[in-house]
């Protein structure tokens, strides 16, 4: 189990361009494949991570590791997800200038960056599935009857969160607390 956890999070660490949010679809996939926990439970912890200190990626790795194999699971998963960055940076720091100016590296990154935008957008769908969408979500059903797919009360919280962030410039901690209160009162 520990070896599997390490390998899974090491793999996630290698492909986690674009930071924590872009890592989410990778983790979702591995959780589903390995059957580590219900997707909903993982979504909860990521949602809560908006309020706890530290990068979401570490929070998520620690949580999945702990749930699978307690303290050592958490340790192994966290080390696994951090190690690729660690090794890559030690190598790159020795060829810093070359790396910084390489046109080929720039070209590859110019393609990876938009891909991570797509990855982060896909994470929105995962969260929507366990909150604002009724039941499961399938693209064909969604295209047929878009409004049937939404659960109105969570959709209202979703909309208010966007308004709170864009119009009133509230931070993620305040927005998460407000959404939790609204959920407890009205859902």
């Amino acid at each position, binding site marked *: 189990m520990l070896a599997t956890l390490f390998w899974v999070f090491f793999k996630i660490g290698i492909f986690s*361009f674009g930071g924590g949010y872009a890592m989410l679809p990778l983790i979702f996939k591995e959780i589903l494949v390995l059957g580590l926990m219900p997707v909903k439970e993982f979504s909860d912890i990521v949602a809560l991570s908006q309020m706890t200190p530290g990068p979401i990626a570490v929070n998520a790795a620690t949580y999945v590791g702990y749930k699978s194999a307690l303290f050592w699971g958490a340790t192994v998963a966290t080390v696994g997800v951090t190690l690729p960055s660690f090794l890559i940076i030690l190598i790159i720091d020795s060829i810093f200038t070359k790396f910084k100016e390489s046109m080929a590296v720039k070209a590859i990154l110019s393609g*990876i960056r938009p891909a991570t935008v797509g990855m982060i957008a896909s994470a929105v769908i995962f969260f929507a599935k366990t909150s604002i969408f009724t039941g499961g979500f399938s693209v064909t059903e969604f295209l047929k009857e878009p409004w049937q797919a939404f659960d109105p009360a969570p959709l209202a919280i979703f909309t208010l969160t966007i308004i709170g962030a864009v119009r009133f410039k509230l931070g993620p901690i305040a927005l998460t607390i407000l959404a939790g209160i609204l959920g407890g009162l009205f859902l």
Partner: protein
Amino acid sequence: MLPLIQREVVDKRDWVTEVEILDIFAISQSVPGVIAINSAIFIGNRLLGTSGAVAATLGVVLPAFLSIIIVITILTGLRGNVIVEKVFTGIRAAAAALILLAALKLGKTAMQGKIGYLIAVIAFGMIVIFNIHAMWAVIFGGATGLAVWLINKGR
């Protein structure tokens, strides 16, 4: 988190210069992993080599690690409570909104030209519609970026 790092290591402690830190942030965004952790690894390595990198990584990871273990301990006692489940549905809806805003914000800077939009849409479709492992979206994006560059260079 980046302004915090900058204040601490440049202004307060003089570990790296103003110019160095900007380079470090830029490259930290270009390699896999979280920018804050990557920057810490860089700075630790610059100061003390590998052992510095290890110390900096532990320092930046530990608060997140410990806070999640505390959260798990508290949550386990609350599971199954009807009100708590409702609160969490609300929080998940907020997370969906916050992540959507993050995607839009990143999209503004990350997508340059039609090819950028195309890559983003294909990456999204690969994961959401075809259920493909997201690492293939990264590989696809990198390969497309490289191919476009090689084609333009060949002209």
